[in-house]
């Protein structure tokens, strides 16, 4: 291909300043691998095993506060070239082996080294955290249309025994997002500890039902190897079975705790991404199409570099197949006061979460209760507490614009 001097890359003169910064999406998840390596190679101190957790919960929120937000977007004419540039895909591919090696090293480390309970706890949290980055990667690749990316998504999600996410997220969550039907959209007044009991089982059964329906249409058994919930689960079973055979059955509860903590990272993300936001029901009985104001966003620089732009969530839901490097910010979107990691800290303390977020939610929906996804049991209480009033019920099924 010959290139011209004026527009050598097809980017119409646009320079992507984040191009190299996406490497943080590889470096930050790699910190879970650094802990055991420092313990073995430098000195047997438990503090090393906390490095990635401290980084996630203290250093990243601090960097987000210091570095601030990025409101820039790639110009639309540069997007086709940006999407076609294989570099961005290679960065995502590279994270797959990093996460696998990190998981294996941590499990084998636990199998061979006697740690005090707080050392084991540190490894569970850091390795579970790296599975959270795996869910983020599986999310990015699972949305894409190429077979390679879809399989890499399944292989990555298999690490945490969470392969059903691939089905559940694309065909379930994206269809039902910001409605009471969605187990993966949190409601106003719902704490993270209540949400998790709805989100985890709800997501699994929705995935299973979607696959059962698809396979029935295909005329195949739900237990066939074409079941995309079973495919990654089989990889997980072989992986976990092999590690048990090697390290003994004592490793199983630890691996299950790690898988749970990984899945809980997704629960946290789901909790903060759509808290209380609601799509209106149209006269046809369908919900209005998912709009940018149905997701919470964060433009904080560092956490976005570490998470493949996941926090530009509105554009993702409006355009799910758009690649991470092209996701945009829009004015007047519901905004989170920090990046995801800072917000996760807040969710652990529900009174604090409600204090910060309920006010933002009311601002985001213009204090209109018909635009709020309430926890039914708390609806009355919240309406009273914030002095909200129902608008006159629209007649004849008309929906206000």
């Amino acid at each position: 291909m010959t290139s011209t001097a004026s527009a050598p890359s097809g980017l119409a003169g646009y320079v992507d300043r984040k191009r190299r910064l996406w490497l943080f999406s590889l470096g930050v998840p790699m910190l879970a691998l650094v802990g055991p390596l420092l313990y073995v190679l430098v000195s047997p101190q438990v503090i090393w095993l906390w490095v990635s957790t401290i980084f996630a919960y203290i250093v990243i929120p601090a960097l987000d506060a210091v570095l601030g937000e990025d409101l820039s977007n790639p110009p639309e004419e540069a997007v086709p070239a940006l999407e076609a540039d294989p570099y961005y895909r290679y960065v995502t591919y590279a994270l797959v082996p990093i996460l696998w090696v990190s998981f294996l090293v941590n499990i084998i480390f636990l199998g061979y080294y006697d740690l005090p309970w707080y050392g084991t706890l540190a490894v569970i949290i850091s390795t579970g955290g790296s599975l959270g980055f795996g869910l983020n990667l599986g999310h990015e690749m699972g949305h894409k249309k190429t077979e390679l990316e879809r399989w890499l998504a399944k292989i990555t999600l298999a690490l945490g025994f969470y392969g059903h996410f691939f089905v559940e997220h694309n065909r379930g969550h994206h269809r039902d997002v910001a409605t009471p039907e969605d187990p993966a959209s949190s409601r106003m007044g719902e704490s993270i500890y209540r949400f998790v009991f709805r989100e985890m089982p709800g997501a699994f059964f929705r995935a299973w039902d979607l696959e059962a329906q698809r396979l029935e249409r295909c005329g195949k058994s739900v237990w066939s190897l074409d079941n995309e919930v079973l495919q990654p689960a089989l990889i997980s079973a072989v992986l976990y079975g092999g590690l048990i055979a090697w390290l003994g059955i004592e490793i199983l509860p630890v691996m299950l705790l790690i898988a749970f903590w990984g899945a809980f990272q997704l629960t946290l993300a789901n909790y903060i991404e759509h808290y209380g936001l609601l799509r209106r029901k149209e006269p046809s009985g369908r919900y209005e199409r998912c709009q940018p104001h149905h997701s919470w966003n964060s433009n904080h620089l560092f956490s976005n570099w570490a998470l493949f732009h996941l926090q530009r969530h509105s554009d993702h839901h409006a355009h799910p197949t758009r690649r991470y490097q092209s996701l945009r910010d829009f004015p007047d979107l519901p905004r989170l006061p920090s990046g995801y990691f800072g917000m996760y800290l807040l969710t652990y303390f529900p009174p604090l979460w409600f204090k910060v977020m309920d006010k933002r939610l009311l601002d985001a929906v213009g204090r209109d209760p018909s635009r709020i996804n309430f926890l039914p049991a708390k609806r009355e209480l919240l309406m009273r507490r914030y002095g909200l009033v129902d608008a006159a019920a629209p007649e004849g099924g008309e929906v206000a614009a």
Partner: protein
Amino acid sequence: MSRYQCPECGYEYDEAAGDPHQGYPAGTRWEALPDSFTCPDCAVRYKEDFKPVEE
């Protein structure tokens, strides 16, 4: 045989090819797809949003 395209992500349903992965064999007419059909790639657009592709 006609083709229908998702206005969001460009997914194309071709009646001649069907979408066997989704359980719609080759030759399945657009009208025969359930009303609950959503775009298999982006899940943002419903059946009624799809646009016929001009030949």
